[in-house]
């Protein structure tokens, strides 16, 4: 084994000097949440860095809905799942059709629609929330899951269309020509040639839209209010309204709520990082 030179040791030390604070900075709020989730109530408030008696009891309380804050936990969890999946599926359908139309069929005015979509992408979400809340009221959709699903589709679609258009512009034109020569109709071209080739981007965009809807707090909090209709983040926010919030249960619920996106993110990391960061800022 070759011994490292003094210079190499120095470089490594300098890197560690950056790496350790970065690690602490990143992990402290997450670890704190986890610590609360595995601590009994009295340990949670003691300021200890590891509980004397780690327990999974909090999870059991949440799963069995044994606290009045949590009596609708499963229905709220289910609401989050339904809304995220619906928003993901709908975004995917609308954006794939639009990207195919703009990029492959070169529909008149497609470039215009593209620019309008991009414009939406740049409206800060909290600013659109106010008029959107009022509009949903006018449409009679308030307190209806569709309001949140459609709001999420509105917010996710522009970016989805943009990324999918960039990806589909890279597919060679010859593919479309060959398929048309073989007698494929436009819809067959879409279904049998376009969609299969776009699969990696579609996975990335579907995941993006699902995570966006799953993680959304502001719109969910404005558009839904009944205990049996709200999503998990709104339920978590409602804990704050009480003076005697059971923080260890709040953190446990938060931990459960944060797990699916983290898992999905790591499962699709390959697609996400390539597809999303490359699309976010074209350099």
């Amino acid at each position: 084994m070759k011994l490292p030179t003094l210079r190499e040791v120095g470089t490594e030390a300098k890197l560690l000097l950056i790496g350790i604070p970065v690690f602490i900075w990143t992990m402290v709020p997450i670890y704190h949440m986890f610590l609360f989730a595995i601590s009994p109530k009295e340990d949670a408030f003691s300021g200890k860095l590891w509980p004397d008696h780690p327990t999974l009891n909090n999870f059991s309380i949440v799963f069995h809905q044994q606290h009045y804050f949590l009596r609708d936990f499963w229905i709220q969890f289910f609401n989050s799942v339904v809304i995220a999946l619906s928003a993901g599926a709908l975004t995917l359908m609308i954006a794939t059709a639009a990207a195919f139309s703009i990029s492959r069929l070169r529909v008149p005015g497609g470039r215009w629609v593209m620019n309008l979509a991009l414009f939406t992408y740049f409206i800060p979400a909290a600013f659109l929330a106010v008029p959107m809340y009022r509009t949903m009221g006018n449409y009679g959709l308030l307190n209806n899951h569709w309001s949140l699903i459609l709001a999420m589709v509105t917010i996710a679609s522009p970016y989805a269309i943009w990324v999918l258009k960039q990806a589909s512009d890279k597919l060679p034109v010859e593919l479309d020509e060959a398929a048309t020569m073989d007698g494929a109709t436009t819809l067959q071209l879409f279904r049998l040639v376009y969609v299969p080739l776009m699969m990696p981007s579609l996975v990335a965009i579907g995941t993006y839209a699902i995570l966006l809807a799953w993680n959304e707090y502001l719109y969910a909090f404005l558009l839904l209010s009944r205990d049996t209709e709200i999503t998990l983040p709104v339920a978590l926010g409602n804990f704050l309204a009480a003076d005697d919030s059971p923080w260890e249960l709040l953190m446990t619920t938060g931990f459960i709520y944060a797990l699916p996106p983290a898992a999905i993110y790591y499962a699709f990391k390959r697609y996400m990082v390539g597809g999303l960061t490359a699309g976010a800022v074209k350099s």
Partner: protein
Amino acid sequence: MAITLSGDQAIASPPLSARLTTPQVWGIVLLAPYLLVFLAFVVYPVGYGLWLARHPASYVALYHDPIFARAAVNTLIFLLVGINLKMAIALFLSGFFAQQRTWIKWLSVLFILPWAVPSIPTILSVRFMLNPEWGVINQLIFKFTAEDGPNWLNDPSVALAMAIGVHIWKSLPFWTLILMTGRLAISHDLYEAAEVDGASWSQKFRYITWPSMQTLYITCTLLSMIWTLGDFNSVYLLTGGGPADLTHVLATLGIRYLRLDQLSLAMASIVCALPLVLPLVYFMMKRLSR
């Protein structure tokens, strides 16, 4: 009328029926769903909102509301301090994460977590850490100094600084990743040549890294400004705009008026941000759609 399809070809217009081929008819059909969503949930709300914000009286009322003035100042602090700090750290860390080390690769996997997990549980976790009585930070301060720590969220300027910290915590990974992609695209030969010439660390940054990344850095900063203007969570979940409504930013202020049923004030406060947003949007559109 001429319709420009892809910038280089312009088609003079015969009657519509003769101009459209079957694929183009399909094109319109496939584009229609998005257009409907756009009309129903962007055009109509924005138009309706602007119509609600049409009364000059709303702007006079805003002008006289001290909470609005404070929110405007807070927003500027958030943008100037928060974004520049965040982007500078991201630029620095992008160099760190670009190093080829196994442990740095592992660290980068964890580093992405704040961005990957939803804001609400983590921001509430920070909120609890900052609790003056039971929070872990003041518990540790007490353990080591036997003194009570500060009441972090009770002093508006400290609370705003904490909200900026939360914002940086949440969005730093994303920008670091983007800037790292930019850094990795710089040719390695340039650095090797510079090393042969005996260039120092700072010279390499100044003459190679920065010139190659300048445009990307500026674009990222502007895009980050737009998104930060819309960042509701960092402030609302940490301080709720308090104490005494002194930590609001424009994003939370609009929602505050909305909750108070003052819809025209809510819209007017958003319209006040437009002179800041529109030039940014124009610049970003130009950059991304070329």
